[in-house]
């Protein structure tokens, strides 16, 4: 896989969203797979909007 430059700002956003979904999982008793899907969606969104 060709290495790409990681944009730290985008990564920070993904991390922030991950925290948000961890919190959501805790509050709403989500399953792990549910949480993973939400994180995947937000990663795609962040990268589409800010890296692509």
């Amino acid at each position, binding site marked *: *896989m060709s290495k790409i430059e990681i944009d730290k700002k985008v990564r920070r956003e993904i991390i922030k969203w991950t925290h948000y979904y961890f*919190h959501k999982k*805790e*509050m709403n008793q989500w399953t*792990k797979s549910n949480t993973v899907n939400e*994180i995947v969606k937000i*990663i*795609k969104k962040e990268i589409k909007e800010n890296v*692509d």
Partner: protein
Amino acid sequence: MLIRKMILNNFRNFKNTEINFSCDPKKKITIILGQNTYGKTTLVKAFIWCLYKINLFEDKILLNSDISDYLLVGKEETAKVMVEFEHKGVSYRITTKETYSRSSSDNIVVAKKAYSTGLKVVEQNTIPISENHIDEEIESILKPELKEYFFFDGETNSIEQVSAKKNLTVAVTNILGISTIEAFKEYYDPHRSDSVPSALRKDLISSDELNAIDLNNQLEKYTQQRQTYLDEIETIEREINELDNQLEEKNNLLDANKDVEKDQNDKKRLEKEIETAKFDKDKAFDRMIQIVNGSSAFLKILFAKSFVKYNLKELMEKSSFKSNSSYKGINEEAVNELIKAGRCICGAEIKNGNDAYRHLMEAKQHMEPHDYSKYISDFVSAEASNIYNAETICENIRSEAGIVNNKIEAIDEYETRLKTIRERIEGRLDVGSIQSEINNIMYQKGHQQSVLENSKSKIPDIEKKIDDINEKITKSSEANEENAFILKCIEYSNSIYQLAITQLEQSKMEIREKLQDEVSTIFKAMYHGNREIIIDENFRASAIVTDGNQDKNLDKSTGLGTVVNYSFVAGLMNLAKQSLLKNELTNDDNIGESYPLVMDAPFSNTDDEHIKNICKTLPIFCDQIIMFVMRKDYNYAIESIREQVGKLYRIQKESETDAIVCEEDL
């Protein structure tokens, strides 16, 4: 986490009790006064049962005795504890119940085992916590293994031992917020099938569909294999931890009973010697009986031997038959035959009246059966032999009787010594059996460690295989825009995973250093001696004298162990409420949290000065302190804590089975 309220219904000796704990930051202490046996420890155990369904009572029936006594067959009654607390801005209400009934055989039995229900209030919305999630939810707030850091039940979890526990890593890292970094590591782990990168990889479009299916099957196989090993490792580590706890407990018992080890060994030796002596005595007695039974004829001689000897002597001396004039080996009948034949063996003629005839007739008087001297001589000789045998038997009986007597005396002496030792060690544990339990635990631990090493050694190889397959999946994916985008997402995901790995190690080091500083500061404020605190890599705290040598003979009279542990717990709590870890993965989430310190009989073995120091220092670092104490201990402490007490209760015992908690004026 701050505890607001606890309600007990039909729980042990509390039929209906409600306690509201002070959560006021300026008045953070709640005092519950109670004499011994009034139920202080019951209240601490009630917290643990409500939150973790762990029943720490020896008698496992939780239902109030008055209620159970009047319970009719077929009817049910429930013991219930409700705890209300706040954690990270959310209010929780957890209720745990256990239902009992009377069986047809008139016993009180559990009809429904302990189960919990819960509610939480998030942003003014009350949400029920489902029964399936309640344990998980409580564990996410305060793991069960951490309970002993915050709930000190005087009987089972002495604060004296907390900071010396074998593995504090899990406890400390969880309290201090590392669990968030661990969650990132888990969610972004490319070697897990349920992770973010694995979910992303499934979106890659392959140029070779068949090959992709095969690779995904292989991936599934190896990720599952890895997970199986990881689960196994986790289980074994937990078991090893449990064995370590058992070892620690047994070693403490061993230390506490070391002074009776010699007595216990002597006791065992004496018991064995008494057993051997009794066996030897019985054997000697049996032999004596056998000798007597088997020698009845000789025994007659034995008892009459002096008379027999005298009579034989008389017989020999006074008898007219002298044995030295007797003809040996020839009898009267043979001579009669010669006379009848008329000729002697020497050839001389025997004729009635001649010299040979007269000589033979004279000789016949000294032959059998006329001569009894030989019989008497043989009889005397046989009797002498019998007397010798009788004397030997007598000697044997005397010898065996001597053994019996010696053994009886020895048994008496051993039993006297044993009685003294038994009195000295009465009620103390058997050091030998503890040692053998320790050896057994060590053996199990050794076995588990080798299984653990074996499982751990498999992981790198499996991860390499997973990495290779992931690489192949990447390579076999179509070179199109959509795939390039997914690969970009995977790279971001992998970079977060790498960040989690690096920060996990750094955070552990950082936490240890900060904990050491924090605990040392608190320790210096509490302790008036010449020692410092060291926190090792497993987060264990120990007090060393300032020249750097570990002092193993800690001065227990000053309660040094208690001071070390209160310093440790206060330091841990103080760090927990700070946003300790500031890094890319935790900066938003780690808002810090307060924890309660619930203490049952907290000042046993602590001198007055240290009680005052502890009472002055703890409220500075802990946001909520709930103290179950006897009034005399409270009187020592009151001067230092008066200003900080928000609630004061007294346990009032109405009867052995009914106590209530009454609020008192401050």
